[in-house]
């Protein structure tokens, strides 16, 4: 389900050329990058003064996105499932002891809401919905974020993440949006809680006293980071990170990987895979090349009936003739990709470290 406007008008011959150069060992990318190299990007955070956190990222292909994070206090719903503690609230209405017992609760998925605005799309179109589902999924899979939204047994923060894609979606915008969200969350701060226990929450009115949503140590280094979602394509035995639109056009498989800091990450060097999704490759819709043997113009013979032509076409694997891939990738490739992403010093690590340097 790639955006139609990202369809490139490449001829079968051009597609075939791209495909074969990407299938080489090592692959040759049209813009000369290595497989794990990202396009340069410009980013800044804290651009919206009245939001809790915000960021803006521009990719060099001209795509640009803004993300804002806003937190609101919301009353928690009592659920029969989350029994005992809630019952206690009713009984002793915020007794000190009970307040201490429940200093940390678990969050719920509904506490994070994301909306994505893509120019030219309605908000219920498939692309924005799908994108926000994927990004939310990664945030929730992280597990720790929603728990941090817990204030007390009666109240929680509700996090609204609004992402605005400023440019037309030239290539698949997932990495752009993910990085922007990452930065926005990294810069997001919540007012400091002053009340105790299960009281109606009361906050310090000094914004300087607010705490980062992703906690930092005294020196300002992050103890935890938001997840990022990367896009990888596989071409033959190779894989390529941060594909350009031309590369996407010949991808045999497109996968989105979300990586986040691992649970027991005191070292925070260890990343873990949070989610993985395959995406319908746009190459499926490219026009197929016709080998000379089947071309009526080349052979001069009458064209075959469509079904016979298809059958004949299926059998050929002529080099240099573009054949839209039908999906699927080798397990070994997938394993390699995952490894490349999450290994210490891997791609995800590199991207996160790069974004850390953006001034908050």
């Amino acid at each position, binding site marked *: 389900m790639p955006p139609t406007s990202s369809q490139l008008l490449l001829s079968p011959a051009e597609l075939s050329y791209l495909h074969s150069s990407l299938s080489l060992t090592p692959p040759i990318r049209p813009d000369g990058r290595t497989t794990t190299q990202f396009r340069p990007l*410009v980013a*800044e955070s*804290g*651009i919206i*003064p*009245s*939001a*809790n956190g915000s960021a*803006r990222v*521009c990719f060099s292909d001209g795509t640009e996105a803004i993300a804002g994070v806003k*937190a*609101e*206090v919301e009353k928690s719903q009592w659920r029969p499932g989350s029994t005992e503690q809630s019952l206690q609230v009713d009984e002793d*209405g*915020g007794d000190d002891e009970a307040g201490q017992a429940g200093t940390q609760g678990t969050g719920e998925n509904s506490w994070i809401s994301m909306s994505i605005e893509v120019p030219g799309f309605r908000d219920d179109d498939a692309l924005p919905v799908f994108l926000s589902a994927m990004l939310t999924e990664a945030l929730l899979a992280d597990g720790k974020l929603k728990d941090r939204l817990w204030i007390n047994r009666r109240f929680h923060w509700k996090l609204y993440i609004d992402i605005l894609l400023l440019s037309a979606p030239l290539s698949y915008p997932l990495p752009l949006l993910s990085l922007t969200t990452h930065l926005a969350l990294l810069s997001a701060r919540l*007012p400091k809680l*002053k*009340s*105790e*226990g*299960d*009281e*109606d*929450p*009361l*906050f*310090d*009115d*000094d*914004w*300087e006293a*607010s705490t980062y949503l992703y906690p930092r140590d005294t020196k300002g280094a992050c103890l935890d980071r938001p997840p990022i979602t990367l896009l990888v394509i596989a071409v033959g035995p190779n894989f390529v990170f941060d594909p350009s639109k031309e590369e996407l056009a010949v991808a045999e498989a497109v996968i989105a990987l979300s990586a986040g800091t691992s649970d027991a990450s005191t070292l925070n060097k260890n990343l873990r895979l949070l989610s993985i999704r395959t995406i319908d490759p746009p190459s499926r819709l490219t026009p197929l090349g016709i080998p000379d043997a089947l071309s009526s113009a080349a052979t001069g013979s009458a064209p075959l009936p469509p079904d016979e032509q298809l059958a004949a076409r299926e059998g050929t694997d002529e080099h240099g003739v573009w054949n839209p891939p039908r999906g699927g990738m080798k397990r070994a490739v997938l394993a390699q990709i995952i490894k490349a992403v999450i290994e210490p010093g891997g791609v995800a690590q590199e991207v996160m470290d790069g974004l850390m340097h953006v001034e908050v």
Partner: protein
Amino acid sequence: MTSLKRAHPSDGTTGNLSSKVYVRTTRAGKVQKIVRELYLRQDIPCSSKLCTICLSSAPTNYHSKPQPFILSATPTGTKSFPNGHYLVPDTNAFINGMDLFEIETAFTDVIVLQTVLEEVKNRSLPLYHRLVSLTKNEDKRFYVFFNEFRKETYVERDSGESINDRNDRAVRRCVSWYSEHLKKAVGKKSSRCPTVVMITDDKDNLRKAKAESVVGLSLHNYVSGLDNADQLLDMVTEGREQRSTGKAELFYPGYFSLSKMMTGIKAGTLHQGIFNVSPYNYLEGTIHVPAFDKSLIVLGRENSNRAVSGDVVVVEILPKDQWKAPSSKIIEEETVNKDDNADAEQGEGVTTERERKALQEEVKRIHGKTSEGRPQPTARVVGVIKRNWRQYVGHVDKDSVRSSTQQSRAQQTVFVIPMDKRIPKIRVRTRQAGELLGKRVLITIDSWDRESRYPVGHFVRSLGELENKGAETEALLLEFDVQYRPFPKTVLDCLPVEGHDWRIPASLDDPGWKGRRDLRDLLVCSIDPVGCVDIDDALHARPLPNGNFEVGVHIADVSHFVKPNNAMDKEASIRGTTVYLVDKRIDMLPMLLGTDLCSLKPYVERYAFSVIWEVTPDADIVSSSFTKSVIRSREAFSYEQAQLRIDDMSQKDDLTQGMRTLLMLSKKLKKKRMDAGALNLASPEVRVEAESETSDPVDVKTKQLLDTNSLVEEFMLLANCSVAARNYEAYPQTALLRRHGAPPKSNFEELANQLKVKKGMELKTDNSKAVADSLDTCVDASEPYFNTMIRILATRCMMSAEYFCAGTQSYPEFRHYGLASEIYTHFTSPIRRYADLEAHRQLAAAISYETLDPSLHSKPKLEAVCKNINVRHRNAQLAGRASVDYYVGQALKGRVLEEDGFVMKVFSNGFTVIVPRFGIERLIRLRDLATPEPESEFDAEEYVLKFTGARVGRVELFGKVKVRIEDVLEESTGKRSIKLSLV
């Protein structure tokens, strides 16, 4: 990519834009991050008359003139600052020393920084208001400098810097900027350049100031350099840090956090209300909360937890096994804790041994008869929402002054005993203990910490010797918060320029005549107490051809002279009412209006607001009309004169005939009102009809009521009712009305029970009619005074009448219980009551005489007005009574009399007696009867107190006793007052 971010102010000094970020929690619980943009300017003047630079750049007003500069060119100097100085106090200097800044002899030329002003506002609203009024006082030369908006003095908060540190830095920046700026402005004549002095009590700030070579002094150091430093130093607030006793013991439980209280109140587990202390038992407080019909009781110091009478507190209900009946015992602070040492903190418990004993006995008593099932819910205070501390009048407890130090100037801690018995004694540090003994002093409470048994306060000023007439009167006025200062110039400027020569315009074309009826030919007269100078009302009556009568009530047209929202109107709305003391009257309006221009004096033409009815001979109203008018009163009678004239059958003139008509009609009106269930009540000082609503303030000696009193009364009531109905018709939301709520049945329970037990009489309380009727039956043939006494007691069971704004209540709630009137307002005394003035304005608009001022359209504004005048009205009454009390005491000075008295209330260790002849009511304690205190046996069901031991006797409720009246110097208040003792 160009950055979208706002340029950071730290990027360059050229930027004149900055922003301020903070978190706001809305009432609905929403938490918002607020970003305010700040535009920095360079044209905010320093306002020193020395400065010419600022004068040229200062913003100008409509007439292209800048605001006149405030700070003097030759400010006063001290020894250390011979060139004169400007003061720049920081926040804690104002908080700790507001009383100092208000004195007239020092502290002039003060620069109040915006940073400081805002901090003061956040810390204490009352102090903020005082500071703002100081800045408006031209003589004090206080200038508010908006340093946060001036580019040179604005400071950006550094990362990691606390708000306080940042504000301190802002203050220092201002001081150094001012110094440099003034030097530049003064130029070569630098010898005359005043020093800019920062005053702060923050040690860290002082240290930093020194490092930055900014002149800074602590408040204490600065004051020490002034003349009469001793007196001034006493006025500095007792700071917390001055308590040296290190590891203090905590006497009281801590308060809940604000959020915890709010959560509790919302959830209904905690309750909020105003804390009231019983005048008989200082350890017992009551709180009325909406959730319960009966008040909650707070017993003991620990439970009342530092709440002072009048505070808005949050309470928690105690478990049921701790519920108690209200106390039947008198407990007075000065007898229980007689010789506490003010200095010693050690060994103090929250409750002293004796207090505990007193309470213990209480509990025993309750437990003895739990079967009766009377216990009421008790509660404990868990937090204070709003302190209602004011300045208190009191005197220094002489036991707390160390005799050896009476003449020395050393600082020592003494107790000040407030005049109001409900306020605990206050610990005050002073250097002038010796001088203050035997004086009336004014003090304020500063704080009440957990480690202190009594609140800590400071001395404000001395009012004079105890028992000195001036001092006592001033004490009274201060205690009841009566504004008694002379009217300021701004108010006097609102008076007509002609002064006493002002006349009704002769030409009927004059705008003053527009919309007015010429009623000068009516035979109008006024009837008032002897010597009345502010004549509010006048009357007339004349027969109509159809056999009916035309009756007119003419009220002084004050609203013609007092226009809404000018300075005079504001002053009047603050004063709310004229206060009558025995020897003094504190006017609501300046004399010129009250006693001359508005007063309906005889033989001169005056503007009036007239209510005219057509009345049948049976006193039924046929029609009523309202009009602004001009009248000429033919005569001003006193009640006695009027009575004589009516009774003198030889007088046959029209005026007398008119008065006879009025008298005839008033009797019929009264009859009708009584039939409808109006109450005839009594109060102890003087016999006053419940219709004191309109009655003129009563002379102490006036006991005899003439027919003419009730003549005026009836027509005033009628006018008030008619106007109320008319105003309500015109403004159903905003009419200013007066209501008297029906008392809850439980209020009468005690009295009804007492009557049943003691006299076998029945008090029906279903409605006012039933009350009125059954009060009439409560007669003891042998004791004519008995009925009056019951009426006094019944009055105490009632609610107090109050002003309100029509839109805040439903129509059935408008009812005036005492008058049995559906709707009522005050209209007939605009010279001495602000409510009447507002009613005049509304009526004038209702009859399309003029347009209604917007302030009278606004419900919130009217509600605020009502709230204020209700308080003022009540205070005026209390002040009047206290004044009578004082004078009765003075009158009986040095005399010993024996009189008959009646027992009104019985406690387990005492009883109160009322003496009809003087209308005085006093407490007689058992321990006053004999020493040692007689053993007592109190039968609460039969209201009988038997005592044996040193003295044997029996006292029962409503019983007649012989008492000795003598005057004594009361220990607790230092006031001479009357003491009763059993003969």
